[in-house]
């Protein structure tokens, strides 16, 4: 179980998150939705420990693997295996632990043919697969995913969806952000809607999504002239 309570975050005088308070139970899959700039990434960064809140506290129970920006931590001049080791070390594992998993990771990512190639020659989809595969194989208790599934072909989307389901079966916790409403409806136990730094709605996926659609509609009805 992880809980986050009452914090505000000021960056460059912008109030990125205001008075967020939430509790996430073990095994829950939480989808976070909201318009761009609403604070989703900031929220994930705080939960993963990348940012420290200006006030409030954060309690995490279990090992957490963040998938925040795809391919960061990857060194372009190195090949897949070397990058898996780097990535795994950053996620908190020892070199030996990761080395044992390298083959599984490459196989899951379907990169057997490319594993000796330098990362700079990888497409965005290949990077996503590699990062995702590494994070999943390392088997954390909590997985944080920030919109990385936007990049990647249909095959990868299918594969990652299946991986998420497997993850859920093992009673692991997932917190993810996406603009893909279908995924939100299919995968999430609960959905959080963030708007301008505040949790506007939290609850059943269908309820929150309809509320979100209302918000989007209200933005579209303002008569901005394009030309």
């Amino acid at each position: 179980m992880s809980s986050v309570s009452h914090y505000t975050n000021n960056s460059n005088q912008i109030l990125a998150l205001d008075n967020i308070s939430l509790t996430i139970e073990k095994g829950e899959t939480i989808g976070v939705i909201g318009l761009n700039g609403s604070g989703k990434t900031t929220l994930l960064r705080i939960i993963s420990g990348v940012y420290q809140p200006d006030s409030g506290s954060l309690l995490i129970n279990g090992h957490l693997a963040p998938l925040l920006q795809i391919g960061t931590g990857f060194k372009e001049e190195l090949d897949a295996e070397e990058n898996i080791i780097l990535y795994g070390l950053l996620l908190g594992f020892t070199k030996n632990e990761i080395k044992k998993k390298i083959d599984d990771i490459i196989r899951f990512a379907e990169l057997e043919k490319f594993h000796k190639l330098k990362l700079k020659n990888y497409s965005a989809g290949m990077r996503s697969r590699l990062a995702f595969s590494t994070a999943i194989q390392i088997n954390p208790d909590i997985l944080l995913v920030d919109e990385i599934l936007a990049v990647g072909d249909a095959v990868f989307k299918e594969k990652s969806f299946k991986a998420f389901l497997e993850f859920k079966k093992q009673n692991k916790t997932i917190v993810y952000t996406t603009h893909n409403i279908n995924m939100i409806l299919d995968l999430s136990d609960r959905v959080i809607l963030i708007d301008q730094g505040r949790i506007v709605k939290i609850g059943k996926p269908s309820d929150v999504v309809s509320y979100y659609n209302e918000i989007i509609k209200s933005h579209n009805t303002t008569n901005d002239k394009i030309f």
Partner: protein
Amino acid sequence: MIKFPLVELFDKRSLILHFSWMNIKLRFKGSYLGLIWTGLEPLLMFLILFVVFSSIREVPEENFGIYLITGVLFYHMFSRGTSTGLVSLKENSSILKSFKIKKELFPVIATVTTCILLFVEIGVLFSLMPVFEFTPGWNIVFLPVLLMLFLILVLGISYILSVLYVYVKDIQPFWTIFVYALLFVSPIFWYTSEVDGILLNIQQINPFGQLVEMAHKIIVFNENPSLLEWISTTIIIFGILFVGFIMFKKLESKIVEQL
């Protein structure tokens, strides 16, 4: 609460060593001369200084060549080590933004990288000895201790510079000029016996200069620096490490947002 830093560092030794080694590997990837450049840079600097100063004046002591190369090597490593440490947080901003990782690891990784390069430089030193028909005395066994102190000095300074650099970019040009000044106020191409007045005063409080002078004694003159010298230098260097680390911890919380 700050856990005792050494314990944390030991836990993360796998990551530190691997990242340092990768830094070395990446630095020289694609270049033909590769690691040799680490030795070539100070060597060229040494040659220029050697030729110029040998012809400008009467060299009072013998072994000026070894004296000079010792100073130049330490200077080169100090310059490289501190400038790498300075950018260590900025350069890894994408990692810091995506993973929960202890920020103080990055100056440490930079210093371990410097440590590895230090071995290359010491290799250069020893390979030049036959050229100058020089054999070191037994006092050279103290060299590893001196190198340890040197690395601790670099680390302490890296803690200070790296965290300040995130907030104040001007630190970088300022430090460049400061290091440039060190070339002249440290006994690299002059002897402490030759100078008095302000240069001597600066030397008393310049920990880098103190280390260089101790290196001269150990390597060139085959003397053991006095106990007072060892103690005072050690205290100053650990003092800098302590202050640097505390400063780092105090300022670190908003680093990631600033990057």
